[in-house]
């Protein structure tokens, strides 16, 4: 009986061994689950608070050469200003670097960065645990997401079509975020709704 039990366990184990762990990417076009985040001023936001507005998520890390490229050339600031010009779009810059890792900042430092870089996000979200990043399966800095008024994910991927950290590559590149927002504002479906994100890896815990 003991041997029988053992071989039974063996056969059950061999069946279980087929199971594979899961991944959690949100597919474009599906609804985004609500999420609560804290910004650099200690204020709490729910994603659902922004229902009725468009939300742009920008994963960032000020030490990352790719992020530097877009801020030094003014490209990210320009994209932010264009996006938030009307009152109908919210821009959240999210920092998911774990404590001790590159890009991890305090709320105060985050605010200083916003001022010194002349950036204009609606809020800078601090996500040192990486919870928000994981729920979006964010990979890189920058990694961009656009959520429409109905809280549907309508774009995810790169900021533009030139995936290099060299500054010379900003000019002439197609800005996917601006294009997607233009499509939405024109009442059209987003033409390019998913691209491969590029950049530094998010400095997860």
């Amino acid at each position, binding site marked *: 009986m003991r041997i029988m039990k053992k071989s039974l366990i063996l056969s059950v184990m061999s*069946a279980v*061994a*087929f199971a594979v762990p*899961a991944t959690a990417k949100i597919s474009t076009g599906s609804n985004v689950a609500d999420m609560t985040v804290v910004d650099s001023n200690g204020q709490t936001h729910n994603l659902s608070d922004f229902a009725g507005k468009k939300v742009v998520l920008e994963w960032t890390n000020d030490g990352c050469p790719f992020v530097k490229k877009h801020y030094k050339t003014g490209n990210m600031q320009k994209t932010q200003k264009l996006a938030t010009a009307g009152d109908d779009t919210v821009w959240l810059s999210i920092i998911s670097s774990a404590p001790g890792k590159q890009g991890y900042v305090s709320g105060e430092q985050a605010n200083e960065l916003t001022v010194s870089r002349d950036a204009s996000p609606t809020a800078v979200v601090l996500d040192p645990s990486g919870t928000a990043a994981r729920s979006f399966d964010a990979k890189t800095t920058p990694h961009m997401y656009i959520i429409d008024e109905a809280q549907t994910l309508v774009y995810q*991927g790169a900021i533009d079509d030139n995936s*290099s950290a060299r500054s010379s590559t900003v000019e002439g590149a197609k800005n996917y975020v601006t294009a997607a927002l233009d499509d939405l504002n024109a009442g059209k479906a987003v033409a390019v709704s998913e691209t491969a994100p590029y950049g530094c*890896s998010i400095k997860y815990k």
Partner: protein
Amino acid sequence: MIRFILLMTMWLVALPAFANQSIPVDTGKVEASLVSSHNVVPPGGKFHVALRTALDDHWHTYWRNSGDSGEPVFVDWKVPEGILVGDISWPLPRTLATGPIINYGFEGTPLFPVEFTLAETAEIGSVFIVEADFYYLVCKDVCIPEQGKASLPIKVGPAEADTRWQAEINAALAATPKQSGIKGTIKKTAETVIMGFTGASSLSTAQDVHFFPYDQGVLGHSAPQAVRMGAKGLEITTAADYIWDNPMAETLSGVLAFTENGQRVGHEVTLAIGQSIDLGFAAVKPQAVGGITLLTAIFGALIGGLILNLMPCVFPVISIKALSIAKSAHGERSAIKREAWLYTAGVVATFLLLTFALLALKAGGSEIGWGFQLQSPKVVGVLAVLLFVIGLNLLGTFEFGSSLQNTGAELTQKSGAAGSFFTGALAVVVATPCTAPMMAGAVGYALAAPAAVTLAVFMALAIGFALPFLLIAYIPGMISKLPKPGPWMVTFKEVLAFPMFAAAIWLVWVLSLQAGEAGVLYVLAAMLAAAFAIWCFKRKARPVKIIGVMSMLAALALSVSLYPKQVALSHEADAWSAARVSELQAEGRPVFVDFTAAWCVTCKVNEKVVLDQARTRKLFGDTNTAFLIADWTNKNDVIAAELAKYGRAGVPLYLVYNQDSVSPVILPQVLTYDVIREAIAGK
């Protein structure tokens, strides 16, 4: 600066004899230089120049597809007009993990060689410069973009190789993944991509397999790549990325990397999109199927065979045999041994016959599995009639020529031998519908294995099946443990008729599913004919006996004229198909797939005891789980292939695709409510 000038001068002076390497450039974390395979190249000649990058420890640069983040190494070559510049021969990348992020790149000292072709018109004796502007992102936990410039003079004249660098460049070129005989396919189903690779014998022994796509967006770089080995190749299943929703080319390319004889190798493979190839999963190697080894399979089969004795359709036959042995117990011991061995021979012979039939069908390309016999309504019909006749016999309606309950005195040696042999054969025939849970793995393994292994496992099954009698015959105390023979045996025998009738009813029900109402009519008519034949045989008059023979033939004819009916299309809504699973998954619903067959006892028990219960239905309702049935009652190659995918050769098989799983969870063959609940919840 002075040192630099000195170096420069030395290098220029020493040029012809100097190893052909540019002055190394330290860009920070990397020391980069250009190296050439040749110092002197003839007009029209080919040579290689490589960017050689010595990385600081634990720092890495990126492959042509950098993976989740990063940026590929970039080189801009500047050469005089007329010189042809080729593409970088990329080294074999490795996966580099940073938290949940997976990158493709290099550590150590990777070389990036490029082939150059000199113009035919190049002037002998002249010197030209190969110059490179290079740029790379070098990362550890943080990334630094670094760049530099290097140049190298090459002389035109009779070819003169640089032995030092040529060797290193040739080694790099040899290790560069190239097109080989490997063919590949890629297909997206639901959220997964399945890639098949075939065309090289090394594939079946490959270890640490990983596919690196050239393009972004094809597959989730950080998703695990599940590898399954077939006799003709291997299959990789992983998460799909966004590219599949966009217009695509007809092929995708990348590098299939694996370890072969301790050596890491890579092959460039072009994948045909939307296709699949035969990877020989029907003949999977022993160690590949769910960790079942030959020994485990043989042991499982032995135990499974033993358990078969307790199945409701077998038990009556066995009991009668046991009793007849008990009766002989007062006779000589050698006679008991002889009977036990004859019985074993009957069992083994029948199993051999079945195994050869299976092997023949397999060789013929049929997808078959355990219980395949019952997929034919003809076999089910004959079995139903046979069980009915055995039942009548047990009730004492008639006696076989070498009737089991006869006292040995009337029997000739020969008919006794035939009787034991026949009992063994009969026991196997009626046992086949009953798949003991333990046996499924072993039989699945056996059917997927080479013929010799199939034979070994089935023989173990046969021995296990016959084992009780061998034990009775050989273990001294056993016979005395059997109940004393007496008049009670007649009653016992008659009682055993009823499980036989019950089994016959079950088979008739199976037939009603397989062959419809007409099938039921045929088999019942066949039973009537058989009963009439038996009555005829009991008459003394010869003409009546002839009528009996004709009636028996009619019963047989009726049974074998059964045909499977077409599956009703109205059932399609819940019917399983790979496409349906994908659709439902896309809707975000968990999916439960029940691979079942009307003739599968374990399946019916699970359906009755677990699946058809109110709380299970409620669970499915609450979690919005879709319930799909893959009905294998009749022969179906698609379902057989799906079963084989999970190392099974028969039903039941239960799969749960929960919302975000790449591959389904395989549930145990004996279901419980909790097992299903946890699988759906993704625990």
